[in-house]
């Protein structure tokens, strides 16, 4: 989605021969990759440049002849638009809460699945299922079978007439997203748990460490890189949540559950305001890049340091 530059100093050195020869050689070796690179640049960067160009224009698609250059006016409008700021806040809340909660739940489930018991494979398959369901189908499932104030399971279980989607719109959307992403977090942490060396765990129990102590002093540090990866990947996907909001609440009531992707969609495909929506897109890309670069730095640091296992 967004262009990321790998922070300097993290790319492994390719050769240790003399400089000039080396660049020549690698240049030759990379020549066949050029068409692919050009193709990637064409399909990812040209549309972005166009978007950048449109973001300096005032252009309403349904008003022919309305296209003219306005400089930075669109960006000024974006930052003074209270709906945009609300959507930004919603996006942050949604991403942080969903990633955090699904990570905790995923970690809990992974720890439970890390031990041997009858029917483990079956349980694991069941737990992964929400992640395999189409996002759109999952959203509709939650909208009707769970939250509906007349036919919903929640209504049936708690016997309340709460209209969840209009009274707690953002929380309802977050519940659906957490349900969908918990299995993903669980899989990553489970992979981490199963790669622990048995000797270290045995040594810990020989040294008289109890379960808690072992978990906090050995397992958690070992898991940290896996948790970071899960957080990063989860955040990248959840920031872009669209299906759940489009299908469950349409960003409403009012704009209570509007996040940035949905808001940009509305400005582009309901407002047909090309300039405004392009400017928003650019702002969001820049924000995402800042966050992602920061997160990537953290990750590379985590991977370059040996995680405590030998």
């Amino acid at each position, binding site marked *: 989605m967004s262009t990321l530059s790998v922070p300097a100093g993290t790319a492994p050195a390719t050769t240790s021969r003399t400089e000039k020869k080396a660049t020549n050689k690698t240049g030759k070796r990379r020549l066949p990759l050029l068409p692919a690179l050009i193709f990637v640049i064409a399909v990812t960067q040209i549309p972005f440049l166009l978007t950048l160009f449109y973001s300096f224009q005032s252009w309403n698609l349904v008003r022919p002849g309305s296209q003219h250059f306005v400089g930075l006016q669109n960006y000024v409008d974006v930052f003074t638009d209270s709906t945009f700021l609300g959507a930004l806040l919603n996006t942050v809340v949604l991403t942080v809460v969903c990633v955090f909660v699904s990570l905790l739940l995923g970690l809990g489930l992974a720890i439970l699945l890390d031990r041997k018991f009858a029917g483990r494979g079956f349980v694991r398959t069941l737990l992964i299922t929400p992640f395999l369901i189409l996002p759109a189908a999952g959203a509709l499932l939650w909208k009707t079978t769970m939250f509906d104030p007349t036919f919903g399971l929640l209504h049936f279980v708690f016997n309340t007439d709460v209209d969840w989607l*209009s009274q707690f719109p953002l929380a309802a959307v977050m519940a659906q997203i957490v349900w969908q992403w918990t299995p993903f977090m669980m899989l990553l942490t489970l992979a981490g748990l199963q790669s622990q060396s048995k000797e270290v765990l045995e040594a810990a129990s020989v040294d008289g460490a109890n379960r808690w102590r072992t978990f906090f002093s050995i397992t958690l540090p070992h898991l940290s890189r896996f948790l970071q990866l899960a957080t990063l990947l989860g955040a990248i996907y959840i920031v872009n949540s669209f299906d759940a909001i489009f299908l469950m609440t349409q960003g*409403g009531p009012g704009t209570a559950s509007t996040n940035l992707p949905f808001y940009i969609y509305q400005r582009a495909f309901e407002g047909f305001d090309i300039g405004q929506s392009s400017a928003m897109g650019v702002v969001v890309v820049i924000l995402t890049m800042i966050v992602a670069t920061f997160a990537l730095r953290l990750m590379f640091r985590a991977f370059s340091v040996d995680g405590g296992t030998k």
Partner: protein
Amino acid sequence: MRKLLCLLAATALFVTGCAGAGSLGNGERTLVVAIVSNAQMKDAISLKGEFEKKNPGVNLKFVSLPENEARAKITASTATQGGEFDVVMISNYEAPQWAANGWLENLEPHMKATPGYDENDFIPSIRDSLSYQNQMYAVPFYGESSFVAYRKDLFQKAGITMPAHPTWAQIAEYAAKLDDKQAGVAGICLRGKPGWGESLAPFTTVANTFGAQYFDKDWNAKLTSPEFTKAANFYVNLVREHGEVGASSAGFTECGTQYAQGNVAMWYDATSMTGTTEDPSTSHVVGKNGYAPAPVDKTQASGWLYAWSLAIPKVAKDKDDAWKFMAWMTDKEYAKKVGEAYGWNRVPPGTRKSVYEIPQYKDAAKAYAQPTLDGIANANQQKTMVSAPPYPGIQFVGIPEFQDLGTRVSQQLSAAIAGQTSVADALEQSQKYAETVGKSYQEVAG
């Protein structure tokens, strides 16, 4: 998210679109029709075999979507001259604007060349609303105004008589009397679902009759005026105190369900609601309903005017077949076809005067035929507004920006109905949006 914008950019760049009318050799042609998936349109889709039999070699392919999605898709395709569709379903909001932009085919020559089509049979106000410079650019499939449906039995029980021309003050009073939480009957159903074609349509007619307007004649936004504030408070309080449950997400469909299930005593909405309220297969209240004209405050009428219609984009490849299909769906015979196949209550109302002369239809629609016709006949700015605004339209502002502005205002209204914001704050925010739009018109004028 960037994907969306890329798509947009790509569409703007490569204005090729996918070939709509691909010829499949041997003279087989496919006509792609973008249509809104309302009940009456679904009937038309299920009758398509009849058209294909009459016109061998033309296959119909319908792209049918709910109103909001259909509108977004059709607008994007037409504005970028994409050419994906041979026939599009639009309304009297788009038709004059798009005709002025040169995006639509003029239908006058086609109508004149079709024997028995008789364009003079269309109700004049509907015809005018689909015309640009006295030429029709879209033909109406069904037309509607708005009125109040009410339960005669509940009114009788409460000892109330509905006047021939109710005012909003009276309606509010009746709603309070008929509101019966024990029996599970709310006083009135009014839309609260965001969307310029959803909650804003009934609300704007209330605003009009209270003397409020979106813009004065110099394009100054007027959403915080005393009249507008009064209208917004009236609407929001009425629906919060005596309205349906889940009001902030209830639209035309949801209100229809509530009324047909007997959960509300009154319903102010589109005259096309009779397809829901009088259909024995969906409604438990058939035969118990009365229909009164749209309630008023300062004006003599307040009903809206809306017509789902068919048009041909300028870039469509196969205009002759497109017209053949449109003529089939909007001619005098179509009403009889639907009447005989599905029942006379399902005939698309409010377009042709001749439909109202068919004896079977007259008989089936006696409760609402006249109120519908009266509503449509009175739906003009002179009768529904206190003064002439600088824009066309009754329940909408006939400018391109209104889709966006209206949706934003309706979101604020819906938040006020849900109790998440106050009416004053909602109008304050809406005023800001409206000022931005008004300014761009002042620049053009000044």
